[in-house]
């Protein structure tokens, strides 16, 4: 096998079988999870802090052992008792974990040094990785001379240099400012597509999850709430938690009367309403402002100018105002009465 090409015969598939985690102090971090990750796919673990996403990642990495009975399989081979240093996974930490006692090049080459690569091969690979991440000129810098974005690139280069079987990223962009986060997200996405490497990405940022994931695993209180493509998760959330965690979701309570959903703010046609539905959910982008009276009528409680559009909070007599977005061509102001219509095909029926 050539030491410098990135071509790999077949990307790694990972299977978790009944992996649970209880910490020494008795905290249950993860309920038994079953999960199959296909070779080459980018899977995102998404959820609020404490949902078990990082614990799951650490179990896959080999930094945590699942409770007895749980198994981790790499390409069908049981690696549950294999230490992280034997698993050959590349890892990027939230705090980057770059070694302050080494230069950028020293950090990137460390894994290869451990593997006993010859000096010439090592130098070649390090140069290659520096070029891949476009940080050639930083090679001899010390870590404390780098900005956050530069550290992130070094951490990625270091993890990829050893040609890992899988790449594991634990909230890699959280420590960066918004603009840089956006840029790096695009860059990481391009990189992952070109490398065709199995990637697990942990984040609490749903926009990041949507942009990067082939599939998203939404987690809640140590359980998997839903697994699906970003589109599935967004359009067919499995429960109220997923619906509200991913994107903005409006909800109204009321009752169904012969194909009409009756709420405090008006009567909305809903031909496919499930029997006995008492709540309906819909996304802001599925609401349009009606010329005259709409299905729903309400008052603008507040509005925020976002540049390309206006975000409106409309009080329709329910506990919470609904959120909609409108083109900024319209002259709208707080206190205006407006009519709204909602596409019934976009309705999501979820009852607690």
């Amino acid at each position, binding site marked *: 096998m050539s030491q410098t090409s990135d071509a790999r015969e077949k990307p790694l598939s990972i299977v978790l079988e009944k992996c649970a985690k209880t910490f020494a102090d008795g905290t249950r971090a993860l309920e038994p999870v079953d999960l199959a990750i296909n070779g080459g796919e980018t899977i995102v673990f998404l959820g609020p802090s404490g949902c078990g996403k990082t614990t799951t990642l650490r179990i896959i990495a080999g930094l945590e052992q699942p409770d007895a009975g749980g198994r981790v399989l790499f390409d069908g081979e049981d690696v549950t008792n294999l230490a*992280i240093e034997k698993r050959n996974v590349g*890892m990027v930490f939230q705090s980057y974990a770059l070694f*302050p006692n*080494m230069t950028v090049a020293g950090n990137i080459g460390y894994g290869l040094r*451990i593997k006993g690569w010859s000096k010439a091969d090592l130098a070649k690979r390090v*140069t290659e990785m520096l070029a891949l991440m476009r940080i050639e000129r930083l090679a001899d810098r010390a870590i404390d001379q780098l900005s956050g974005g530069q550290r992130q690139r070094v951490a990625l280069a270091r993890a990829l240099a050893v040609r890992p079987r899988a790449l594991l990223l634990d909230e890699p962009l959280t420590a960066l400012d918004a603009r840089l986060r956006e840029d790096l997200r695009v860059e990481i996405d391009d990189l992952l597509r070109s490398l065709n490497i199995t990637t697990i990405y942990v984040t609490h940022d749903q926009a990041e999850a949507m942009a990067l994931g082939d599939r998203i695993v939404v987690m809640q209180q140590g359980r998997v709430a839903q697994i699906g493509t970003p589109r599935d998760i967004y359009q067919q959330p499995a429960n109220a938690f997923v619906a509200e965690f991913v994107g903005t979701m409006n909800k109204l309570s009321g009752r169904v009367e012969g194909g009409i959903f009756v709420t405090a703010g008006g009567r909305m046609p809903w031909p496919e309403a499930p029997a006995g539905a008492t709540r309906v959910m819909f996304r802001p982008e599925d609401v349009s402002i009606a010329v005259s009276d709409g299905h729903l009528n309400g008052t603008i409680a507040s509005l925020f100018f976002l540049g390309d559009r206006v975000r409106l909070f409309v009080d329709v007599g329910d506990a919470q105002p609904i959120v909609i977005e409108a083109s900024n061509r319209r002259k709208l102001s707080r206190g205006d009465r407006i009519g709204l219509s909602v596409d019934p095909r976009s309705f999501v029926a979820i009852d607690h």
Partner: protein
Amino acid sequence: MKTRGASFFLQLAFTLIVCAFLIVPVLLSMLAGLTENYLVGIGSGLTLKWVANVWDNYRDTMFLSLGLAVACLACTLVIGVPAAYVLAKRQNMFTRAVEELLVMPVAVPGLATALALIVTYGALRGFRTSWTFILVGHVLFTLPFMVRSVLAVMSAIDLKTLEEGAASLGAGFRQRFFHIVLPNCRSGIVAGSLMVLTLSVGEFNMTWLLHTPLNKTLPVGLADAYASLRLEIGSAYTLVFFIMIVPLLLAMQAIATPRKPRPVRREDETP
């Protein structure tokens, strides 16, 4: 230029007085070691004969002190650094208790520790009369300084994540310890070493009880000289002590200044 108020000059004067209070006795003592006759004063002329006298009679104590300090440093490094590592990695009731216990020899008067050692091991003739007996006392006394100083650095850096990073790149425990843990605790190890060396060289309390006539360290010899010989000899002894310890301290300080990571040779630079 801004005019300085009276309070500035008061503070300056106070600082100078404190400095003088500390430094003048040292200078006088060193000068006394070079004076022909201290009772007559500096007018009696300067001489190196007292220094030579000290060198002839007390050379052994100096070499013993230096040897002890180096051996003590070696022991505290070998015991203290791994101990600090374990204390940093495992924070529980037991390790906290160990951490407190380690400080006991500093809290308890040196004489008490020395007595305890004599009571326990005094019967072992060979050991009691050997310099290693003093070494044991010194290690007991200086170990907490090494552990504390290394532990402080280990707690300040995110050692756990650094090690996890190294492990994810394939490094086993030994490689992680030598490539990552030790280099990143360098400042703590150097600071601890500095403490251990100076404390060991200057230790008198405990050593005074532990020593035998054939195993005198420099401070014990110094006490001896002041008690039984001319003041000039004692002072010359102090002078020699300074000449010994100051370069040692300066050298350690030079090592302690942070070092930039060494650049790795890359492909375009290979000949």
